[in-house]
């Protein structure tokens, strides 16, 4: 897409030399929420990285901290109640957490943008969608009214909204769920970002529409050469589009691998349990294997390995010692004392 050319180059700190060259890197991030009920340690040392043009999937159950990490990257966490005791978020080598708000605002939307699970609540119900896209272009890019409108139509065509020119005056409620998510995607692309964070973009949609939207995101990512963080709880969705997967549990990345390796042989008991407990479309199984117990209460995270109360392999060591992140080669890691044994199928 030729629209890509200009704005990105002008403002991005591309000239900054970066030590290891990652486009975006979260380093040992911690986030807590301090509320009346106490303090919840929601993110407990998350690290992941993203290179230009690739897709990283972040997989985890609800409450595992996927969205909070994304909000920290976007700089849209409510602080308070949120506190970031430590960590770095490096974008092209610059730590976003140290930037003043006005600098940060320049990154948001223009360098890194985000689409949310619930497109209806993210759109303003009282303005036409075309106007909402155009307004952002006028405010952020200083476009004239006419240019903004023309560009809004282009963007709506880019995300394959039929009869975009006629529908530019329509309000959000006049679009179906799938079409609204397309509008959200158009808006997130308006400022030509280098990184797109998609937070469960299809969870609220029907499977046939979900497939359309995932195809669209995959196509756009390729055509615009964007890097994408895809947040989801659906392993099937991940497998279709992601290069790598980071699995989250209790605010940590407990396993990281490329899609094929992870599916072939998980290296963490939680991932293994998830793979075994999901019903499969392609064959009728026997009774499902389950992961016992419940996801942890973040106000009282279990000692040692946070997964130990649910883990079938837990030993005393797991109760006493927090497992470090072990490297298993090929950019694979697992935060389990027995990572290698699990990977080899020895336990």
């Amino acid at each position, binding site marked *: 897409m030729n629209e890509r050319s200009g704005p990105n180059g002008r403002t991005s700190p591309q000239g900054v030399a970066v030590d290891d060259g990652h486009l975006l890197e979260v380093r040992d991030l911690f986030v807590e929420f301090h509320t009346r009920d106490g303090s919840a340690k929601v993110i407990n040392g998350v690290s992941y990285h993203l290179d230009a043009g690739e897709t990283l999937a972040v997989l985890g159950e609800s409450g595992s901290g996927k969205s909070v990490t994304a909000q920290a990257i976007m700089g849209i966490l409510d602080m308070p109640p949120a506190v970031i005791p430590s960590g770095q978020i490096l974008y092209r080598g610059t730590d976003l957490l140290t930037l003043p708000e006005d600098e940060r605002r320049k990154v948001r939307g223009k360098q890194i943008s985000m689409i949310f699970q619930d497109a209806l609540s993210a759109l303003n119900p009282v303005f036409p969608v075309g106007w909402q896209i155009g307004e952002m272009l006028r405010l952020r890019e200083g476009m004239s009214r006419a240019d903004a409108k023309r560009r809004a139509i282009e963007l709506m065509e880019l995300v394959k909204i039929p009869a975009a020119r006629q529908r530019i005056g329509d309000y959000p409620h006049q679009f179906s769920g799938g079409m609204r998510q397309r509008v959200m995607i158009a808006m997130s692309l308006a400022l030509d970002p280098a990184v797109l964070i998609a937070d469960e973009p299809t969870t609220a949609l*029907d499977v046939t529409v979900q497939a359309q939207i995932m195809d669209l995101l995959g196509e756009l990512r390729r055509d615009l050469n964007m890097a994408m963080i895809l947040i989801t709880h659906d*392993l099937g969705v991940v497998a279709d589009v992601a290069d790598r997967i980071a699995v989250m549990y209790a605010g940590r990345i407990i396993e990281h691998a490329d899609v094929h390796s992870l599916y072939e042989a998980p290296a963490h008991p939680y991932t293994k349990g998830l793979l075994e407990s*999901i019903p499969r*479309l*392609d064959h009728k199984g*026997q009774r499902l294997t389950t992961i*016992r117990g419940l*996801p942890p209460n973040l106000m009282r995270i279990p000692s040692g390995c946070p997964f130990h109360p649910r883990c079938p392999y837990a030993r005393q060591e797991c109760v006493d010692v927090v497992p470090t992140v072990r490297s298993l080669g090929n950019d694979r890691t697992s935060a389990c004392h027995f990572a290698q044994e699990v990977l080899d199928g020895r336990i």
Partner: protein
Amino acid sequence: MAASDPTNPQATTGGAATGGTDPARTGGTKPRGETVLRVENVVKHFPITQGVVFKRQIGAVKAVDGVSFELNRGETLGIVGESGCGKSTLAKLLMRLETPTAGRAMLEGRDMFKLSGGELRRMRRNVQMVMQDPYTSLNPRMTVGDIIGEPFDIHPDAAPRGARRQRVQELLDLVGLNPEHINRYPHQFSGGQRQRIGIARALALKPEIIVCDEPVSALDVSIQAQVINLLESLQDELGLSYIFIAHDLSVVRHIADRVAVMYLGKIVEIGTEDEIYERPTHPYTQALLSAVPVPDPKARAQREIIRLVGDVPSPANPPSGCRFRTRCWKAQDICATTEPQLVLRAVEPHPSACHFAELKQHVVA
């Protein structure tokens, strides 16, 4: 926390318990068991009105438009389809929470849509429901004991006053909750545990049929399997029949013996789990299955991808002839003029509502 652990024994005890339903589960053979419910041409149209004082009807949302099926004892009939196709409306009709526009539902030789008074109450006892949302379907101000025991207020003969507490505790135990938690409130339980409370309430009156409307959709992946296993072991133990509504086709394949696929208020294809998932003949079923993302890289490689264009049309104004024709890649002139009936087609011994029903390789894997 403690309450979640006793739940797991069923989880790992493997397939032995499924024995009772095995013939239906494993083959294309006719499911066993006598018919407990026969639904015939059920229709539900919601009027669309205009005007404030003098409401004029200017149209109707055809939410359910001529649905027929049978449910056998001890079996699970899965119902799948996209949002708005009429699944929940059908469930509400069977619960008598909505009044049908037309049709019959024969239960024990009588049309349950015609019952009233004491007879209706008796029927209600026999057909219970588990709802999607474990957060809103339980009254937050009632204890778990009161919630599960509430049906006994309406049907005092089901459990004499003195025996109620014990009966409720038995039910808690049955669904894998700690019987000592009888005085706790819903907010003290997790989503999966609340869904168990909903199931215990549905079981209180010893029904034969349970209508489950998206019972696991709101649950986390790691918790879904626990609830699915619970529903399956209860079925084996108590001989229940389930109508299991879900949009997750993998979950339905796992739990159902037979499956009905709905589109815009009608069943377009119905058959055994194998027939629908391995040998679907209706283009909509094929597209639906093809759209489900499959995690197995090997299975994905050989899959054929069918992508539907556009959205489901409005049920207030469904297309003429075949309702699927506006999104169907095989549509011909006849599809606009003649409505295809849900009947056996030459290609396959299960009903399909398509003029051009045919098998397609590799839609699933």
